[in-house]
């Protein structure tokens, strides 16, 4: 007698990391009965590498996740122990929020949210197989089977396996087949995915050692404090609630001796001995990589960051490594302040299976398997924030698929999330993909400060933003428009008060009356400092003044980008039918034809971003589509 446990739900999420949590929450909050699988309930929303959330461009992603109704921003606001707005001396487009997290609190807090969300249940088990059946348009997902044989039937399955698929941790000549922190790897699912025709390959990443705080001589390091006035990530967090005592990070440097130790032991590095086959990311190189590639640099920065309030473990930022244990000890203790260092956890590299995300539509659904979605590191990205962003989109789209609604696809002019996903599903990605502000061509419009203005309406339409928050946004929009109009209209005269104020900011005195807006445009002035000469200034909602200031100051540049976006959207709006046969189109160059067949772009815009597809190919494509449309009237 064949007896297995069987359950019927609507959506299954495989993995409870940052992608999985957002995916499961989005699904459940949209009313979908969701089961979230994890190999260990104690490792939900684990931060296996750096102890922070946000940073340049990643902070943008967190804000966008929040604006759409995701959880990451709220969760870090509840559990941060230090916060900093980076790049404040630069333009508003590159301001980025970064917060140090109390890792275990972060994890616990997210778990609490998951456990108390309706329609969501957590199951500790390893998923071994994706079940499908043949539908009339190809394969359709039916559910999953766990290692123990239990069946979970579902209409949608979201893969968020992170770095766990056939994971292998390596340092020196030691390698163990485990996920991060010695957690159990997922060794069965890969075979099932291969059988479904999904192509997988190996990526690699690494993490530095964790060291005992008591063994560190902080007097030899520079203290790095948090901001005096903390800005929360979530648009819903009360700014007062985040003004808490903060913990410091510490800065020290490697030196010639460190580099010498590394160079002498390079032959023992698994990277150079060929023991590691996966491709690592160039933006977070191991310390041995840095020493080899930037041989002329005399020192590299090392950031010592707390892992939480209730632990003595400190993260050694900047010195990830896969060198042998003895070399690690020698290398770390050569750094100023670490002479007597006690290592708690070794640095290691980790290899894992992931996919070429060109197998996905921008909805993050597999092109060949209806109902199968994926998000996060499994898609070839890296970073908690990148993972969470994809998880959110995959979760939303799985729910929308079940509800027979059109998928949510954010384009490159709407959000960093759009840039991230478009890059992943369009371009050939040879290393773990990290977000960067330079990847966003319209970054002046996609600021972290206006994520709510860009996306909260969409979040509301989807159903993840409640009415009250939406109405708040509408009021904010109204106030911004009104206040911009007001400062354009209000003139300040040449009174002594005005001239004195200008003088105090080393700004040229006035010869005649001038609008407030004109004054705001001066580089040395801004909306805020002009308050004393603007008696009729109304009381405004949080964030309004900042928007007014940015809009007035950078008006010309903003308009320029808006014009570019208009052009961009014309091609984005030219949709390509799913069943288009590129072999039928004459005059396409062979290379273009091949690339187009791999990516199957959803729009002419996406097609134009595929490397190897020329502008002439795009023209040919446009003409063909026009002909296919069979021109009516």
């Amino acid at each position: 007698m064949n007896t297995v446990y069987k359950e019927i739900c609507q959506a299954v999420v495989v993995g409870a990391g940052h992608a999985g949590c957002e995916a499961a929450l989005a699904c459940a909050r949209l009313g979908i009965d969701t089961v979230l699988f994890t190999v260990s309930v104690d490792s939900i929303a684990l931060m296996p590498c750096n102890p922070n959330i946000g940073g340049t461009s990643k902070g943008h992603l967190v804000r966008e996740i929040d604006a759409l109704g995701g959880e990451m921003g709220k969760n870090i606001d509840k559990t941060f122990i230090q916060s900093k707005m980076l790049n404040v001396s630069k333009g508003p487009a590159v301001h980025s929020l970064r917060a140090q997290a109390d890792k275990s609190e972060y994890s616990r807090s997210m778990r609490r949210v998951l456990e108390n969300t309706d329609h969501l249940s957590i199951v500790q088990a390893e998923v071994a197989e994706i079940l499908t059946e043949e539908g009339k348009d190809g394969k359709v997902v039916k559910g999953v089977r766990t290692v123990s044989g239990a069946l979970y039937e579902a209409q949608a399955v979201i893969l968020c396996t992170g770095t766990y698929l056939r994971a292998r941790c390596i340092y020196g000549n030691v390698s163990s087949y485990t996920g991060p922190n010695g957690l159990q790897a997922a060794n069965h699912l890969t075979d099932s995915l291969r059988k479904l025709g999904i192509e997988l390959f190996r990526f690699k990443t690494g993490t530095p050692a964790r060291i005992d705080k008591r063994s560190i001589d902080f007097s030899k390091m520079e203290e790095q404090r948090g901001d005096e006035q903390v800005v929360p990530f979530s648009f819903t967090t009360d700014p007062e609630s985040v003004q808490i005592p903060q913990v410091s990070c510490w800065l020290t440097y490697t030196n010639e001796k460190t580099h010498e130790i590394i160079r002498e032991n390079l032959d023992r590095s698994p990277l150079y001995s060929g023991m590691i086959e996966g491709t690592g990311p160039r933006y977070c190189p191991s310390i041995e990589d840095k020493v080899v590639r930037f041989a002329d640099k005399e020192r590299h920065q090392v950031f010592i960051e707390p892992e939480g309030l209730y632990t003595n473990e400190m993260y050694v930022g900047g010195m990830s490594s896969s060198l042998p244990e003895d070399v690690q000890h020698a290398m770390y203790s050569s750094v100023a302040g670490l002479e007597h260092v006690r290592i708690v956890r070794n640095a290691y590299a980790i290899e894992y299976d992931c996919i070429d995300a060109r197998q996905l539509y921008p909805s993050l659904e597999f092109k060949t398997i209806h109902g199968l979605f994926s998000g996060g590191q499994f898609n070839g990205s890296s970073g908690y924030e990148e993972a969470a962003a994809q998880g959110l989109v995959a979760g939303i789209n799985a729910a929308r698929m079940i509800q027979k609604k059109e998928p949510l696809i954010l384009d490159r002019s709407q959000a960093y999330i759009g840039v991230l996903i478009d890059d992943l599903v369009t371009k050939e990605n040879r290393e773990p993909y990290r977000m960067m502000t330079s990847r966003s061509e319209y970054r002046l419009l996609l600021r972290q400060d206006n994520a709510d203005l860009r996306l909260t309406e969409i979040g509301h339409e989807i159903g993840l933003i409640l009415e009250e928050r939406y109405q708040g946004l509408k009021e904010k929009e109204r106030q911004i428009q009104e206040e911009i109009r007001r400062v354009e209209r209000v003139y300040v005269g040449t009174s002594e008060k005005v001239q004195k104020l200008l003088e105090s900011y080393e700004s040229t005195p006035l010869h005649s009356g001038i609008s407030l807006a004109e004054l705001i445009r001066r580089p040395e002035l801004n909306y805020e400092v002009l308050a004393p000469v603007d008696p009729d200034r109304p009381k405004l909602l949080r964030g309004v003044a900042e928007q007014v200031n940015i809009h007035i100051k950078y008006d010309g540049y903003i308009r320029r980008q808006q014009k570019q976006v208009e052009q961009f959207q014309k091609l984005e709006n030219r949709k390509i039918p799913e069943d288009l046969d590129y072999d039928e189109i004459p005059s396409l160059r062979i290379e273009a034809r091949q690339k187009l067949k791999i990516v199957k772009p959803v729009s002419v815009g996406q097609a134009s971003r595929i490397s190897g597809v020329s502008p002439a190919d795009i023209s040919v494509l446009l003409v063909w589509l026009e002909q296919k449309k069979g021109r009516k009237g």
Partner: protein
Amino acid sequence: MSEFDTIAAAATAMVSSGIGIIRISGGESFSVMEKVFRPYNQRKKMSSQPAYTVHYGTIVDKDEVLDEVLVVLMRAPHSYTAEDTVEIDCHGGRLVMQRILELVLQNGARLAEPGEFTKRAFLNGRIDLSQAEAVMDVIQSKNQMALKSSVSQLQGSVRLEIEKLRSAILYETAYLEAALDDPEHISLEGYPQELLKKVEGLCKELDDLLKASENGRFLKEGIKTVILGKPNAGKSSLLNVLLGEERAIVTEIEGTTRDVLEEQLQLGDLSLLLLDTAGIRSTEDLVEQIGVERARKQAQDADLILYVADSSRPLNESDEEILDILRGKRALVLLNKSDLLPVLTPEMMEKKTEHKVLSISAKEEQGIRELEQEIRAMFFQGELDFNEEVLITNMRQKEALKDAKSSLQMVMESIRSNMPEDFYTIDLSDAYQALGKILGEEMDEDLINEIFGKFCMGK
């Protein structure tokens, strides 16, 4: 790529002929026209004139009148492209048409890509569906040809110079982006002023390139002029006199010039691509044979042949061979060595060759001015012309250089007005892309690769 902006191009060949047509199409075409056209009746408001009307007036660049023209107005959807369209009927001829087109480009239109008018006509429903394949074919082949010729016509030194400029721009962009991405590792303290100096330098280099593009030193362009003659007739001496420098090696030994020498010569606003060849004779010397063969080949697709004959020596079978090549070609016969006692007379030669004959002395530099005048006259009377494709390529490249320059000027402007550093990269990237167009290269992953390749960053 912009699909629906305003484009312009010559609708007729840019050669000497009665009428030339410059066509402008797109939403802005009327406003572009208004900026360059002054109607005869100056009170006439051009933009509110009805469709299918013709207006007489002049094309004016600032206060200079470029040409008397007729302007034809068409409104969407009743034109070839189904967009608002203006056609400027001007006097035919390369210089006039080029200047008018350039003026139109300066005033808001973009030079049309090959096949772009046709593409728009199709996309806007003006061309029958059955012709789609033909349209696609035209677009693809014309673009590939243009790309090939654009890169291959570039002078080697110019190419290197542009590559150098481009990599300098990329480096600065990557530095900025690396610092923006990783502010804790890379500082921008004092950098803006440093960048300002660098960009000023880059602008100067761009200016030089622009000048080169205007003087025709940019492309291997010009009227392809091949100098033919028997050994030691004085071909190389003529080349040297024309160029005013000792370019070709001149000796008394027959067969000194064994390969084809290539030089560009500027006759006022006319540029010649001069090709000096090996003297034509039957020879046993293998290297020289190859030279002679090349000379023949060059002569075959020359726009103009200068046949140099030694007036102090009688014609022989080698001359007959040359006369054979000359048949049916545009050519001038130059009786050289007029300082010596002549054996050949102009009358004789004119009868024999049916080409115009001039007496010159390369050695004494006599008759050279007359020769130059004759070439200019032939050109302006429309007897001579050269490859139009080169001209359009040059115009496209000039446009790209100007775009790059104005982007760099924006960078300087941003620095001077204390804009934050991240604003610089917008225009730096534009400049990089504009220069890339000249080389047929795109940006793709260049920036990301440069950031990771040149700067150490990350946790």
